[in-house]
Every structure is written in structure tokens, then in C-alpha cells.
């Protein structure tokens, strides 16, 4: 059996501050009057061109951590920095700009707009960057071509296979040229072959473009393909494996 390719860092490309730094980050939710401590003092730094898998059982805070790393949410306490600037100092609009420029999201259930052609789905982040239609179309076409879907521009999500839909979603994450891809169980809704294609695509993008790739997964087989593997349990980081260089 062919050895799965290990996602390798492009090595030494570390210009500027880390993409995201979480220092002593805590997130507390209030559900029906009960406080739920989803994250409890987590320290985690995602460097430029990093490659990381976040593991842990369900309810361990993986998705909460991913939401914070992607700027979808703010910590209850602790420090969270994007490109060196603290989120507590960022307005909602500035945080939206961080999501637009720094982060590319890939979701388990793809989150594509129905009845909308692939090229428009991919161009969506550029809408909020104020780019015109032609420019969006050009960049979206490039992104779709780079994930191998240059022939599916006008297809709607319902006309695409699961694997293709996830590749459209990856193209959407790429189109804004982010520093980091955040993927939440990106293979969770795919058959093993499509999942394999998606993982290979992520590895290639990491290798070719020096993108930091952070994946949340409960599958050790998926996690093993990333350079760093961190494990969460009950909102705390309990374990980090980093292969010797």
C-alpha cells in the first residue's frame, strides 16, 4: 500500500509574526444558566506555513478553538492575536476583515450557497473585498482551476459530487489568498477516496503556496498527515506531538 504523503512544511518561511497566537485563552458559554467552560487556558501558536491537526473527543473544545483561531468568535479571557494584533482591540468590522484576508475556512458540510454556480460561490469572499464582477470571476476561475475544477465553473453544488463540492469550498478558501486554511473535519462527509483527494489537495497547497493548514479531526489517520498534532481534552491542550526535524 502506498504510503500516505506527509504534509511537509515549506521550511523556514517565517516572515512576520505568527498567523495566530492564542495565549491562555479561555472560552466560557452560558447555556440555560449553566456555565460551560469550552476552553480553559489554551496556549497555541500557528506559525506561517504551519501544518497542524487538532484532535480530541467530541465536546473537548475543538470546534470552539477553531472558531477562535478563525476569528469567528472572541475569547472570554486570554490573549488572541492575528498577525500580531490583539482581537480585543479589533472592532467587529476589523475582525470581519481578518476573516476575509487572513483565514480561509473549509467546513465539514461544505457550506456552499445552493442554486449558485461554483464560480460565484468561490468569488463570494471577494464580494466583501469590494472587487468587481469580472475581477472576481477571473480570480475564482484561477482558484477553481488550481483545485482541478476549471471545467465545472457553472455547475451548481447539487450538480457536483461531495468531493467536488469540498474542492469548490477549498477554492473559496483560497481565493482571498489567506495566510491560513482552517478546516473543520474536511473529510467527515466524504467517502474515503474523495477524502483522500481532499487531503492530498491540502498537502499540495501547503507545499506549493506555503499556506498554514490547520485541521480539526477526530481521525488519527487524518491527523497523522500533519506535522504537528495537538490534542484537546475538556478544554485543555493535553498533548502535542511534533516530529523531530
Amino acid at each position, binding site marked *: 500500500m502506498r504510503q500516505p504523503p506527509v504534509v511537509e512544511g515549506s521550511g523556514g518561511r517565517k516572515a512576520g509574526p505568527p498567523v495566530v497566537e492564542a495565549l491562555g485563552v479561555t472560552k466560557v458559554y452560558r447555556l440555560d444558566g449553566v456555565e460551560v467552560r469550552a476552553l480553559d487556558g489554551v496556549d497555541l501558536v500557528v506559525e506561517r506555513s504551519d501544518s497542524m491537526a487538532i484532535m480530541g473527543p467530541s465536546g473537548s473544545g475543538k470546534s470552539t478553538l477553531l472558531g477562535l483561531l478563525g476569528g469567528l468568535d472572541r475569547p472570554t479571557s486570554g490573549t488572541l492575536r492575528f498577525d500580531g494584533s490583539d482581537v480585543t482591540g479589533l472592532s467587529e468590522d476589523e475582525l470581519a476583515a481578518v476573516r476575509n484576508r487572513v483565514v480561509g475556512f473549509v467546513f465539514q458540510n461544505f457550506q456552499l450557497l445552493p442554486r449558485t454556480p461554483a464560480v460565484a460561490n468561490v468569488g463570494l469572499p471577494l*464580494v466583501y473585498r469590494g472587487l468587481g*464582477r469580472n475581477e472576481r470571476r477571473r480570480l475564482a476561475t484561477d482558484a477553481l482551476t488550481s483545485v482541478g475544477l476549471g471545467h465545472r465553473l457553472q455547475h451548481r453544488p447539487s450538480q457536483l459530487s461531495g468531493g467536488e463540492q469540498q474542492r469548490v469550498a477549498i477554492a473559496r478558501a483560497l481565493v482571498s489568498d489567506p495566510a491560513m486554511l482552517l478546516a473543520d473535519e474536511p473529510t467527515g462527509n466524504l467517502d474515503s477516496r474523495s477524502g483522500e483527494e481532499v487531503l492530498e489537495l491540502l498537502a499540495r497547497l501547503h507545499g506549493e503556496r506555503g499556506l498554514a493548514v490547520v485541521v480539526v479531526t477526530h481521525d488519527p489517520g487524518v491527523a497523522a498527515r500533519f506535522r504537528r498534532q495537538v490534542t484537546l481534552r475538556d478544554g485543555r491542550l493535553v498533548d502535542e506531538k511534533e516530529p523531530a526535524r
Partner: protein
Amino acid sequence: MNTFEAIRVAWEALRANKLRSGLTMLGVVIGVASVVLLVSIGSGARDEVTSGVESLGSNILFVAPGNLSFGSAPAVSRLGLEDVRRIGDAIGDPRRVAATVASGEVARVGTRRATVNVQGTTDTVPLVFDRTVSRGAFFTAADVETRRRVAVLGADPADSLFPGRDPVGKSLTVGGVRFRVVGVMSRVGTAFGVARDAELFVPVTAAQRLFGVSRVDGIAVKAPTTDQIDEEQAIIREVVTRAHPEQEYQVLTQEDILGVVGRILGILTLVLASIAGISLVVGGVGVMNIMLVSVSERTREIGLRKAVGARTRDVLRQFLLEAVALTVSGGVVGILLGIGAALLVGRFSPIPAAITGWSVALAFGVSVAVGVFFGVWPARTAARMQPIMALRYE
């Protein structure tokens, strides 16, 4: 996101749910159409009254008992022919004063009958009201003086009582009294919904005996020029007040009458438009309802848009524009429908309808406002969603 792009997105969202958008729009369509139609009818009524008052002649002053205002009961006149004389003396020209006492009666010629508005008047009517006769002549001051039973026929009863014949010289009876026709009035058309061609003019003295009264209902004075209206109004007021200290009289210009009638019709138009406005509000509530459903259905889309960089105001604008697109398209359809209905009403019914630019502009403005007003809340609900929660919404 620029505005053009936002409008395109809003339009596509509405097209994605054609039936639902159409039904929601229907409420606004009905509301706007009825506003346009009812305001047209109100304006049409006002136009007709205005042209009716103006067609009475120019520079005319009316003396009438009571206080002419909205809601006051009509008072019985105590004016008499001596007042006509007094006013004529005061303004120095009795030919510019006309008096009338009127009643609806049936005129008969043989077996033919016609309902006529018998106007007992002085001989000065042609001069004061700018009326002309097409045949024969109007009766004279001597006819009035001697209470002669002569009559001048309006164009309609002339046709119906004397078909194909010249009525001049023939006779007719009103209330069993025989009158000889001396003239036929020129056709003038309808005013206030009153067929003025159905009039039958007789000397005021003869009419008073026919009706068994000694009063006149009203006196009209034609001022020589527009500039002298105010001056003569003051003279007449003084004469009438001195002669009848016990009763209140009004001396009104055509403008005064138009002002009062205009106010009444203005209130009427407002009431009609308000009733139509209620249906517009109901339509707006429908828009709000469907927008809340839409926001809820598209929670994940909102989460996604925020995740890829949409700001709060981008989402707000998107949903607000969707609501406004709904009401504006409904408004445009409603305006066209209302105009169409007003044209049909004006053409095929006795109700006058005049489409006014301002009512169309108002209806359009109101449909935008309804969209904004009823769209804000759903749009804010959407804009305030936490992206992480919205993305997980099932």
C-alpha cells in the same frame, strides 16, 4: 459589497422563491393600487367641483344664510327680493345682481314629462352667470315685475319635452300652472354631478307664488373686475347684516367656496387614502413576516457570509434591500394597476378620477418606506447573528 451588487443579490434571492415573493408582494400591490385609485377619485372629485364652481362665471359673490363650514346644518334663508334691490342700490348697478329660489319639479307637455330643476330667478341671470340662450330670449325685468308665467328651458328638457320641435311659443305646465316658453338655454354640461342643462328658468316672482314662499334661496353678485371683489364683498356684507341683524349671512367669493369644498374633499381624500393605507400596513407586516422566515431559513448562509468577511452592515444591507425590492416591485405593479383602475373608473363610471403625479410619487415613496420600516427588524436580526452560532444552525 457595492450597492449594485447588493441589489443583484437581493433580486436573485427573491427570484429563488418566486411564488412566495409574489404572494408577499400581492399585499403591497393591493395597498398601493388602492391608494393610487382612491386618491385619484378624490382628486377627480375636487377637479370637478373646481371646474363646476368656475363654470358658474367669473368674479361672482354669493350671499347665503348660515355659516358655511364643514358639519354645519343648512339654514333657511330669510333673504327676500327687497334684499336684491338693496344690494343693487348699494353697488350702484342692479343688473349685476341675481336672485334664485329653486325646487325640483316635474314639467309636463301633453303626455310628456321631464324632471326639471325649476329656478325662479331675476332677469339678470344671463349677465351674472355668463349664460346664453340658443333660441328665443331670456325673460325680462318686466316679466319679473309682473309675475308673468314665462319660462326659459334648459337644453335637456327642451329636447325631451319638444322632440324635433321649436319650444319657443309653446307652453308647458309645472305643478298645474301653465308657463309659456320664451327661450332655450345653450348647453353647458354637468357640474357637481348636477345636470345644469336640466334647469327651467322662470321669473322669481312667479316661482315664489308657485312654491308658496316669499324668500329667495340665494343672491349672486357679479363684480365688474377681480380687483373689486373684496370691496363689493364688504358692501354687500354690510347691507345684508343691517337688513337681517337676527341671522348670520355669509358673502362668499368663488375662492371661499372652493376653499371650503376643497377642505371637505381633502379630508375625504385623506380618509380614503388612510383606509387604503391600512391595507398597505397589512402588506408591510406580510413582508416582515416573510423576511423573518427568510432570515431564519438562511441562517447558515448568513454565518458563511460573515465567515468569509461580510461585515454587520453588509448583511443588514442585503436583507434590507431584499425587503425593499419586494415592496418596490409590489409598489410599481400596484401603481400601474391603480392607474389602470382609475382610468377604467373615470371612463366607465360616473365617478370622476384624476391621476395625479404626486399620488403616484407618494405611493412609490411609501412602498420604499414600508420596505425599510418592515425590513429593518428582520435585517437586524440577520446582521446581529454570531457567525459561529449561525454556521452550526441546523
